[in-house]
Structure formats: C-alpha cells, structure tokens
C-alpha cells in the first residue's frame, strides 16, 4: 500500500509541500487529488466536494498540473502548449493565444518564444512554460510534482524564487511534491513530511519543522544543520548592533586605536563598508595616518538589517576576518556590527516563542494559516 491512513488538510491560498524519501507515496497522494490515481479507500475533498463525484476531465481542467519532465506537447508551439486548457474548455483560439502571451510574460519569458517548439527551449525555459500552461485557465488549485528537480541548481533557485513571487501575487492553493527538504523549506507555507510507507511524520510550517522536529526521523530528514537553517526564519530586528568599531576613512589611526576594539570597520564617505583592519596592524602604523590609506581586509558580505535573517548575519560573521557581521541598511550604509555573542543572544531571544510552537506540535494535522 503506497499511502495509508493519510489525513491532510490543505488551506486555501497556501503552499503545502509533500516531502519524503522516494517511494513514500507523496506523488501518489498528489495524483489522487486530480484522480490520476484512484484511492482504494477514503475521500479526497476539493472545496468540500468529493473528487470522485466529478467528471475526471472536467475536474482536471480546474486543477493546474506541473511535472518534472515538463510533459510539454512536442508538436505544439509554446503558445499553443500554454493555451491547452483554455482551448479544451472552449475558448476561441485567438483569445486563448492572447491569454498564452500574458502568461508567458507572467513567468518571465520573452514574447519571441511564443512561436517556438518546446525542444528549442532550455530546461529552465521549458519548466516555466509548464508553469504557465498550468496557470492558463486560472485554476484555483495547482499540483506540482517535483517541478524543479530536473534543472541545475542555479536555474532551480531562480524557478523557486519565481514561484514564490507568483504565489505572493496569485494566492493559489498549491500542493508541491519534492524530495528536497531545502526546497520544501524554501517554498512551503506548510511542510508535510512523509515516512517511507505513506504515513505522515509531521505537518508543520517550515520554521517549526526545523526548530521542533516531532521525532528522530524528522530531525534526521531535515538534516544536521537544521539549527542553522532555521535561522533563515528568524529576523535580524532583535539583533543588538555595536556602532563603536565603525570609523570613516578620513579618521586617523590614533583615533581608531583609542576606540579600544580589536578590529575596526572602515567606511567610505557614504558610510558603505570598505574593509576590516586589525588593531594589531594599526599599532604598527603612524598615528596620524588616515584609515583610508591603511590596507584593509575585505568585509566578505554584509547583511541587511530587517530584511535578512539571522542566518545571513551568522554567515556574514563566519566569513568576516574580524568574526563580526556588518549590518547595513537598505541603501548599503553601515548600521553597526554584531559579534557571535550578540548573534547567539538574538537566537536565544527567538527561542522563547519556539517553546510555544513545541506545544502546538501535538495537533500536527489540523489546518493552519
């Protein structure tokens, strides 16, 4: 039995990701929704109606479907591929093609591609066409079966970002299947983690999955670095920043030494970071030298306070020669720096609500929004 006693509610307008090892029944579950697979027992309710009570072809025209191998029709142009469902539902071809052009733009493809055949596109472009085709008739529900697994990591990241921005705009009810827990955590509002034989191990928002895995299986599946990855969901607003080691390029070495910090972050006239310099280096430099003339070590990367997560801040600290993360504002101006200790304090502060999440864990299959 591929899927057994599965009880899962998908809230309207949310992305639910089914994730698990191969053979766990996640794809079977997905295909039961549009009746490509018929359940031997149980009910699949869509909008409160049993899908079995509906004509399969009509049901499917209202459910977008995207698969890994794209399944684009090789004998139809890109625009006719996208126009498939509108044409099936009886739109005039001209109107359907106009709609196809709109969708081409929506998924970020050039209008010139409309007249091409699928084999003339790259893998990433084909996958975008697949998404456009699924969206053509504006179905409220979208099923995606490993949609981005066949493309290289760079293209995959771009497609995931696009899905997130599309979803922010369109608010579809999406069920997405993947074996990639990173993808699940990135694109899912809710992650449903399957055990090998079609039962659910945990259903939770991604941050909760990382912070409070239900058991060892879940903890093992999300990976050893889940502690760090969950920081992706912790904002940097609570992070205490220290502005004292920040000095402009026209300040003197003597002034920098007077600050009493082991490392000084030198900024340019616009307060953008130029680099780090160690106090030990400054001690060997004449005191009246402007900091701008002292060789500095690169900052690596800075994090943007407010929009970036603690994970970005921690990463910035790890990569920094000074062991401190440089926080900048939206315009790239330095706001302050954070040490590992300060980052740890922010993590601990964020852990307080995580205790509540753990209690919440006991009702793992209810609707959440």
């Amino acid at each position: 039995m591929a899927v057994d006693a599965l009880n899962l509610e998908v809230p309207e307008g949310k992305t639910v990701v089914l994730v698990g090892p191969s053979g766990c029944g996640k794809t079977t579950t997905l295909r039961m929704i549009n009746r490509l697979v018929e359940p031997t027992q149980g009910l699949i309710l869509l909008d409160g109606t049993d899908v079995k009570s509906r004509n399969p072809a009509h049901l499917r025209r209202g459910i977008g479907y995207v698969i890994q191998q794209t399944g684009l029709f090789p004998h139809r142009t890109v625009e006719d591929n996208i126009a498939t469902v509108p044409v099936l539902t009886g739109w005039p071809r001209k109107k359907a093609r106009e709609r196809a052009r709109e969708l081409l733009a929506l998924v970020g493809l050039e209008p010139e591609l409309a007249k091409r055949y699928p084999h003339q596109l790259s893998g990433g472009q084909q996958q975008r066409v697949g998404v456009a085709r699924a969206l053509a008739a504006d179905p409220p529900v979208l099923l995606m079966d490993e949609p981005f697994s066949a493309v290289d990591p760079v293209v995959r990241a771009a497609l995931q970002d696009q899905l997130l921005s599309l979803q922010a705009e369109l608010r579809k009810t999406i069920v997405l299947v993947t074996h990639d827990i990173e993808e699940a955590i990135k694109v899912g509002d809710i992650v449903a983690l399957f055990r090998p034989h079609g039962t659910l191990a945990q259903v939770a928002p991604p941050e909760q999955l990382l912070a409070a895995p239900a058991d060892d299986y879940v903890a093992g599946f999300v990976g050893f670095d889940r502690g760090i990855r969950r920081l992706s969901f912790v904002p940097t607003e609570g992070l205490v920043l220290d502005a004292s080691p920040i000095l402009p390029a026209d300040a003197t070495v003597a002034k920098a030494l007077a600050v009493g910090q082991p490392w000084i972050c030198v900024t340019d006239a616009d307060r953008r970071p130029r680099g780090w310099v160690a106090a030990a280096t400054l001690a060997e430099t004449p005191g009246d030298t402007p900091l701008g003339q002292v060789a500095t070590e690169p900052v690596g990367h800075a994090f943007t306070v407010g929009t970036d997560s603690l994970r970005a801040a921690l990463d910035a600290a790890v990569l920094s020669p000074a062991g401190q993360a440089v926080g900048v504002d939206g315009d790239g101006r330095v706001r302050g720096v954070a040490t590992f200790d300060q980052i740890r304090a922010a993590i601990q502060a964020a852990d307080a609500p995580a205790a509540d999440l753990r209690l919440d864990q006991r009702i793992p299959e209810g609707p959440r929004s």
Partner: protein
Amino acid sequence: MMWSWIPGNWSLIWHLTWENAKLGVLPALYGLVLSLPLGVIAARWRWFYPPVLTVITILYAVPSLALFIALIPAFGLTDTTVIIALTVFSLCVILPNVVAGLRAVPAPVRQAATAMGYGPLRRLVTVELPLAIPLIIAGLRVGVVSGISLASVGQLIGVSSLGYLFIDGLQRSFPTEIYVGLVLVIVLALVCDLILVAVGRVLTPWAADPRERRTSRAARLVKVAG
C-alpha cells in the same frame, strides 16, 4: 538498347506506369487505414498485439504470387486480387510502425495530457497520433516502395503493370523493354517516396531538421555560458 522503341510505345509505357503506381500506392493507403485502428488497439491493450503480429508475419512470409493465386477463386484475375494481396503485405510493414509510434509517445506527455483534462479519444487524436506521424510515415514509405515493386508480379496473373515489360521483353528476347521497365519501377518508387517525405515534413513542422536542432542546442549552450 534500342532507344527508338521508347517514343514508339509512349502510350503503352505511360499506361503501364500509371497502373503500376495505382497498384503500388492504393494498397499502402488501405494498409494505413487498417493499421490505424489496429495499432491504436494494440497500443492500448498490449495482449492484442503479439497474436496480430504473428498472423501478419506469417502472411508476410507467403510469396506474393502464391497469395495472388489463393485469392483468384474469390476475386478473379482482377486488380482487386492484386490490391488485396498487396494491402496485406503493406499492413505487415505499416502496423508495427503505428504501434511503435504510439508507444513512443513519452509517458510524461501522455500523463500531462490526461491531467490537463483530455478525454481518451481527444488525447489520441490531438496528441498521440500527431506525435506518431514520423514513424507512421516511415512505415508508409516502406509500404509504398515495396508495393510498387511487388505490383509488377501481378502481371503473372494478367493484371497490367510495368511487369508486362519484363515478361514481354523476356519472351521476345528484347532487353530494351526490360531496362525501361526496371528504370521506371525505380523512378516511380523514388518519386512516391519523395512525396511522402514532403508530406511528413508538412505534417510535422515541430520535428525540425537536424541542422536547426544543432544550432538551437548551440544557442542554448551559449545562453548557459552567458
């Protein structure tokens, strides 16, 4: 070789060529018409195909002359006899290609079509059969060429074709006739084959020629690199 024989017998040559073309092409078209439903059934219900394939293979092994003779009691010394026999032979080469063409439709394409909301018949007609066209045309080409070649054997039971020139040339020890017949059979087969290639091109604009496919792949590489 007596070149002057050709202009003197122009109307005979033309008549025989036309008859031969008819006897070669019509059976292939009938074979196609029969192969499509059989192929669809065989592609859908797999158990159906092996026995059908066995039967047509046995029929294909029957010498054409023997099949003509077997049909004479029912249809006489007529075009019909030859056309029926050659239809059976063309079925043997076209049906496997129809089945192969339908089976070659990629599973994700078929699945996507179903998931988009195609019913089985509409999916067959608008997705699966169009995608099978290249292989169907390939089968049709073999069927037509072998039909044109086999049609000349019909002359042995008195049905007009370019085979007349072979028999007459042999009986009269007049090789010119034999050469003319041979060249015309080959030219006729080539012309019909070229027509089918052209028809295939028109029907399958998506199956771009290999040259274009290479450039698009190169363009893709450039895009990835850039």
